[in-house]
């Protein structure tokens, strides 16, 4: 059974969203279910800091031994930070999807979009 953290929000594209101490900024990653279905991640392609995103827009890709999958922006906003360590070694995405394997931090432009995300309970039905 894959792990679903209670304090995060989720998307049907198997991404998680975490509110940070800065209320305008959220951290984004892929779920435990996503990493286990993908298998070992070999390559990550995420845009530079400063890139503007629209909710549900494809903003990057993640490549594993099985396939290349697209990353969808869970919220609209601007990328303010990316996990540089993953560019050289994406292994933490598999080993620690909810902590060291975070992908980007986004400054939200429309907070109401957060209400469109899934609760841990409703994500559970998608992640199986």
């Amino acid at each position, binding site marked *: 059974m894959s792990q679903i953290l209670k304090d995060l929000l989720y998307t049907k594209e198997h991404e998680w969203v975490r509110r940070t101490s800065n209320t305008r900024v959220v951290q984004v990653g892929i779920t435990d279910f996503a990493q286990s279905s993908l298998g*070992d*991640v070999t390559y990550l392609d995420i845009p530079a800091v400063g890139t503007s995103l629209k909710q549900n827009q494809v903003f990057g890709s993640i490549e594993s031994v099985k*396939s290349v999958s697209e990353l969808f922006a869970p919220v609209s906003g601007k990328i303010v930070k990316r996990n540089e360590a993953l560019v050289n070694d994406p292994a933490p995405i598999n080993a620690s999807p909810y902590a060291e394997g975070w992908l980007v931090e986004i400054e939200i432009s429309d907070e109401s979009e957060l209400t469109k995300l899934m609760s841990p309970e409703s994500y559970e039905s998608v992640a199986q």
Partner: protein
Amino acid sequence: MSNWPLKTTLSILQSTPGHEGFSLPSLDVPEAPAPTRARAAKPKLPELSELSVVRHFTRLSQLNFSIDGGMYPLGSCTMKYNPRVNELTSSFRGFARLHPLTPDHFAQGALELMFHLENLLSEISGFARVSLQPAAGAQGEYLGIKMIRACLEARGEKRTKILIPESAHGTNGASASMCGYTVLPVRGTEAGLADFAQIEELTRAGDVAGIMITNPNTVGLFETEIQKITQLIHDRGGLIYCDGANMNAMLGVTRPGDAGIDCMHFNMHKTFTTPHGGGGPGCGGLGVSKTLIPFLPVPTIEKNPSGADDFILEHERPQSVGKVKDHYGHFLMMVRAYTYIRELGADGIQKAGRDAILLANYIRERLKPHYDIAYDKTCMHEVVFSDKRQNKNGIKTLDIAKRLIDEGFHPPTIYFPLIVQGALMIEPTETESLSSVEKFCETMIKVAGEALEENAFEKHFKDRPRHVAFGRVNETLAAKQLKLTWKDLE
């Protein structure tokens, strides 16, 4: 298990100073130094005797798994046996030694063979014409979309989108993109087919150039609404490309050209027994409907219009999309495909297609009680299962695949198509006898049983394969630490 060949290493690392594999006659002209030397240092070539080189490559070939060594049920790849008679005909001096720049009138035999092969493929597929020029299926696919674009532009239309069902082949999107189109995905229905209602919806705006459909599709099912789809796309001004990778299921049973398809590539290495892999040279002809004939690449092979009883290469075709390959593609692959078709004859071709379908359905029925089936209905030349039942006990598709290697089978295609979670895609082809297919099924059933045992992973699946020269390889290391030349190993 024999301990030879156990391991091998790069030829450069086997080099022994002073060893050589050639002998030159003694110099019979005065020795003179080259005026200037272009390179600063001597090239670093391995010093090896002829026998060492032969052993090196023989060893490499023995480490490989091939259809000549065992069953190769790699779904979507149609791993047929390559009959040895193909090698006989393609080595005939007149074919093998023919220079590509030989004038037409000295290459009549080759032109005649290509002319007849084009006609045979047209007959088998129902297309108005065939070009044998593309060097591979993917290039045929690219050419098909390029021709669709040229045709629409000749009609004065600028359409920007192409539909691709989720059950189509993976390369389709790349071809559409390279030809400047935006790809609109079409979802699959619960029954595993392209969703007609969505195609209808997406084509209403009139900006769709066409659809790239794979038939039978990647889950091994025949698109039963294909004629409805081609009719609709044509009514709305678009054209239809079909991915011909799964042509084996249609051989002598149905013809894509008759279903209203405008173009389809052939994978000669799948359907018509030319060798797989090795980086080419390959051959991926393209069949086209009447609508697309003016846009065929040059040259085309024609009967001499002067009435003489010979063939010419026609370069004057004003609407042609141009050339996609130097000369006329890879001729010796065409000789092999031609040999295969003539060897089988019309009845044999039909039997090949029917047997391929029958064997896939035999596997479907035999394995259904043991593996979760993705779409439970009559399949075509391949059948897709998943690891759903085994996964509950921690055994995944990859574990099943590695386990099969130790039983002497090449694994099926795994994790493809992507629309089936943990897919195991099996394609026996008509090459295998019923008894070898049954042996494969018995092994799959045995492995399914092992997967449900307590502590199954530790007992049966850990560190597989164990009985081959190279055991479990790290699947991601090569992708993470690129070592592309021997210099990276020094």
